[in-house]
């Protein structure tokens, strides 16, 4: 056992944790999940739900695991009769005014009230004949609804706004069983990070309007991904239902985004489901773009590249994967090469309670990756160079204002009716971030992997695959950097 560590026993399992660790966290190490509601590792401890009452040897009464610090030799028991009966009582009390409307509740299936009642609740209520309290649904903000009847007053939302967002727009109003989560009528829950209260809510009391009645939790497939909303690189989960992305939620990463994502990132997914996609490779034949198969399209590009010499320009999206960006550069390694990207900028919106976490001004996930690979931020100069280049490669930048006198190759997922890339010699359909696996480098230089959440439409392929095929065809696959 390591020096300076505290040794204790939880449900018979010995664990060794740093001093200052809370019993509830130490229990996780012993493989024990102590049921809880108000406790959340990303928030200050409140100790109010009283669900995590456990027995600690030598303590005169049950203690809450979320506010008790470990001590040497401590013996914690979570499954004894007093502890179980205390939890069962809390569950019964939390349900007395609960509407039990799980069939129409968005939280059903991922509801901690459902889960713990299922796990250790009573068979039935003894509250039976008494009237339940009723309060109407309230509109808290642009994306948040409050259903007070389902609220268990764990105060996670209040603490998030107060201590993490540092903008206390939510409160606990009134006292006793009349209490509810309140807001001032002149205020809105519209902080740029407010949406986190929906994730933090352990029950179906705070709901996302965007996700309202969209899917049942158990129908969702979950894929680890990286948010493309800015250069922060927040870890997210893409929730898909029938191959459509329906929700973005934060995936904990203590180094990057802790437990949170901003509302911009949360809403930055609808484009992933766009229907107007390029679904087949297109090559110019008799002056017109014609659909073809991958073999012919790749042959055509390889032919163009073999037949050209001099300068080449790559105009790339800072949302493309590092793999694709590296291969695009390699593909053009026989040319005098210029590569550049442009980033849409927006207003920075920090989350005050978490150092180094913000919606970054750079609204793209991989500008740093592009920069590391030698792509320039001088997009104007690259556009100018494109005018006279022998070959211009546009990667995933549908609005690129390119003017090319040489060959123009466009790899993209969409293309507007008047987009300059319509004039390309070859157009190759690629997957978007939800449809491929890849790597982004965030603003702090951290490389993070994202995974495929749904299939790409039609014949679209990941850009890295397309560019890999082309480098292989040109015999550049073995090239060392």
């Amino acid at each position, binding site marked *: 056992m390591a020096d300076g560590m505290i040794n204790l026993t939880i449900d018979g399992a010995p664990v060794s944790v740093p001093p200052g660790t809370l019993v509830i966290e130490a229990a996780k190490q012993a493989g024990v999940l102590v049921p809880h509601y108000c406790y959340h590792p990303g928030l200050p401890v409140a100790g109010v739900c009283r669900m995590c009452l456990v027995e600690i040897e030598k303590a005169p009464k049950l203690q809450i695991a979320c506010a008790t610090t470990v001590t040497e030799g401590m013996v914690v028991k979570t499954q004894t009769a007093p502890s179980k009966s205390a939890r069962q009582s809390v569950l019964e009390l939390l349900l007395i005014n609960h509407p039990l409307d799980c069939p129409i509740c968005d939280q059903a299936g991922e509801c901690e009230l459902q889960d713990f009642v299922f796990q250790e609740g009573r068979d039935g209520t003894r509250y039976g004949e008494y009237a339940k309290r009723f309060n109407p649904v309230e509109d808290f903000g642009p994306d948040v609804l409050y259903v007070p009847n389902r609220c268990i007053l764990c105060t996670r939302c209040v603490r998030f706004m*107060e201590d993490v967002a540092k*903008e*206390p*727009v*939510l*409160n*606990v*109003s*009134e*006292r006793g069983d009349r209490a509810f989560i*309140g*807001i*001032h*009528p*002149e*205020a*809105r829950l*519209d*902080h740029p990070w407010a949406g986190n209260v929906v994730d933090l809510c352990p029950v179906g009391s705070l709901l996302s309007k965007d996700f309202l009645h969209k899917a049942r939790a158990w129908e969702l497939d979950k894929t680890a991904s990286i948010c493309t909303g800015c250069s922060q690189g927040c870890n997210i989960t893409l929730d898909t239902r029938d191959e459509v992305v329906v929700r973005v939620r934060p995936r904990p990463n203590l180094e990057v985004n802790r437990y949170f994502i901003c509302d911009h990132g949360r809403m930055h997914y609808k484009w992933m489901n766009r229907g107007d996609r390029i679904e087949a490779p297109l090559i110019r034949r008799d002056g017109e773009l014609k659909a073809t198969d991958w073999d012919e399209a790749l042959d055509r590009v390889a032919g163009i590249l073999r037949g050209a010499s001099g300068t080449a320009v790559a105009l790339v999206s800072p949302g493309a994967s590092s793999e694709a960006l590296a291969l695009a550069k390699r593909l053009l390694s026989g040319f005098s090469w210029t590569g550049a990207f442009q980033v849409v900028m927006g207003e920075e919106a920090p989350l005050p309670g978490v150092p180094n976490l913000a919606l970054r001004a750079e609204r793209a996930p991989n500008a740093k990756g592009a920069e590391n690979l030698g792509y320039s931020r001088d997009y104007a100069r690259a556009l100018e160079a494109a005018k006279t280049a022998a070959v211009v490669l546009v990667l995933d930048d549908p609005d690129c204002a390119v003017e090319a006198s040489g060959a123009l190759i466009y790899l993209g997922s969409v293309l507007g009716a008047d987009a300059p890339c319509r004039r390309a010699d070859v157009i190759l359909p690629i997957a978007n971030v939800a449809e491929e696996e890849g790597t982004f480098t965030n603003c702090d230089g951290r490389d993070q992997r994202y995974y495929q959440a749904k299939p790409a439409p039609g014949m679209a392929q990941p850009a890295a695959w397309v560019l890999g095929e082309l480098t292989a065809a040109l015999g550049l696959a073995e090239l060392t950097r």
Partner: protein
Amino acid sequence: MTASHTGSYEPVFVGAVMEELQSVFQRYPNKQAALLPTLWIAQREHGWISDRIMAEVAEVLGLTPAYVKGVVTFYTMYHQHPVGKNFVQVCTTSPCNICGAEGVVKAFLEHTGAGDAGATSPDGKWTIVEVECLGACGFATPVLINDDFLENVTPEKVPDIVKKYR
């Protein structure tokens, strides 16, 4: 978060009232701690604590209106609605109850025309409420009319009291 001041709202914390508040600030290490006294001043000046006043108090103390509302709704003595000119609080907790407090409430409701507990009489003069323990159980039944603390009130004494305050 937005908190706008529109309409014909007249701020409470100006002039002498603001000066009074400045002296309240001297008692505490931060402005938030002055919240309860600030609300007392607001209620004294305006009669009750409206949402608009909460927003003003929030602005004056560097808090948010929602925070202020959370605090206002915790304490039963801050009126969240207008009340009658005479706000009558009758203690009906157990020790007073056994000494006949319910009769005192009934007498006040009858003689003031307030009708129901919590409602304000049509002439706007009376609001009668039942409250929990006023801390004068040995002087049952204690009644608080505005800031006047009356002891040993019985139903028989109510008509005279009402006459005095009318």
